[in-house]
């Protein structure tokens, strides 16, 4: 009798564990405008049995290509976070944020087919990943491939994207999604930093780029939803005030008719937060 109760208890406990492992988040959301792509206006009923919501925040390689894929974009290597700084990062938080930052730098260099810099940043991301216990994610042969021959922009992006997916997979497999959240936040802040620097904090220097920078409020919206759902994690929770500063700076700007003063303030917020992450 005692044993049957014990087994029932164990069954319940393990069932609960399986449920928790499969689910990621179950919060609701709202607030986006209608799409111009609508082909049907049928209403979808609320999902009754949702084991998980996944926030698929863009990887740095995706963000870099969204921001840089226009004729006015160019490569300026001095803006990147120096690989020499990598020795400064020793906590999980600083390692994860800067792994994201270096991945954004790597994606930016790859986008402009900067062979040597891409190799250098691939190596530093490998080092940081290993410090975080993410082993064998970056195949040394891939680094060698970039180093040995000139790859096209697309080939570089595919290689970086696949490497990032391996990191994503590894962290999911090992139940360390909070690190991926920090990597994505770091990558997004860096991509915004690079873009605002390229715009020279001016509305008129490169209006197309400014438009793309302001459109990134969309990603920030999802990022805040994800962070709100991960409040239990101290490191992730600590990022919320920083991201809220960016949100406020975004909200101050009238996207249809941005004012220079407010755009400069926005660029400064991005710069301060990026400095806080890299120093």
């Amino acid at each position, binding site marked *: 009798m005692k044993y049957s109760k014990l087994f029932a208890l*164990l069954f319940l406990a393990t069932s609960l564990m399986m449920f928790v492992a499969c689910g990621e988040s179950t919060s609701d959301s709202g607030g986006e405008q209608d799409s111009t792509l609508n082909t049907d206006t049928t209403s*979808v009923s609320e999902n009754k049995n949702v084991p998980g919501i996944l926030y*698929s925040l*863009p990887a740095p*390689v995706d963000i870099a290509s969204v921001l840089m894929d226009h004729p006015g974009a160019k490569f300026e290597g001095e803006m990147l976070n120096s690989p020499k700084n990598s020795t400064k990062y020793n906590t999980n938080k600083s390692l994860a944020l800067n792994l994201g930052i270096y991945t954004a730098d790597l994606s930016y260099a790859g986008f402009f087919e900067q062979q040597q810099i891409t190799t250098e940043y691939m190596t530093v991301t490998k080092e940081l990943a290993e410090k975080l216990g993410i082993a064998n994610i970056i195949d040394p042969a891939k680094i060698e491939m970039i180093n040995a021959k000139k790859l096209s922009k697309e080939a570089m992006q595919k290689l970086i994207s*696949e490497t990032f*997916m391996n990191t*994503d997979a590894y962290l999911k497999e090992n139940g360390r999604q909070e690190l991926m959240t920090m990597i994505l936040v770091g990558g997004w802040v860096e991509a915004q930093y690079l873009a605002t620097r390229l715009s020279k904090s001016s509305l008129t220097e490169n209006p197309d780029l400014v438009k793309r920078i302001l459109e990134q409020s969309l990603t920030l919206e999802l990022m805040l939803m994800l962070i709100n759902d991960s409040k239990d994690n101290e490191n992730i929770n600590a990022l919320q005030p920083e991201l809220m500063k960016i949100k406020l700076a975004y909200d101050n700007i009238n996207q249809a008719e941005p004012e220079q003063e407010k755009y400069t303030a926005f660029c400064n917020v991005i710069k301060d937060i990026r400095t806080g992450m890299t120093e």
Partner: protein
Amino acid sequence: MKQIKILFIILPIFFFGLIQDTNGQCLDFAKTEGFAALDTAIYIPDGRLNSLPLSQGDNLDVYKPFFRGRKYKVVVIAANGISEVNFKVVNFQRKVIFDSQAGGKKVSEWEFESERNQNLIISVELPEAKSSEQPKTGCVAVLVGFSQK
């Protein structure tokens, strides 16, 4: 009593290992089958791996931003004998933009060009198993690729 204590320790470890293994297989499946379906010769994978082990009758929502002027391919695949998986792409008001079952022909992928910046939800549904059958569980993966002009 000692045996009971050992049981308490071993069983959760066993089940945790089982869950980890299921997730690992799920991710391997997403990478192999998903990449092939995505057609990486044309589309660059967006760098994210959205996959979960799901059972028939479950739903999964993937929230993702899409940017104007870019071409995308969304692929939804399922493993382990789950033959039917449906998906809709909806906005935050749950207005349907794409339905994989529309027009009476079921499809597992959608290619489109985003005309504006928008956060969308890829809402995946595994239909219930027939009442006479045990629900199957398998990996479901949602992959997105983009192409530059």
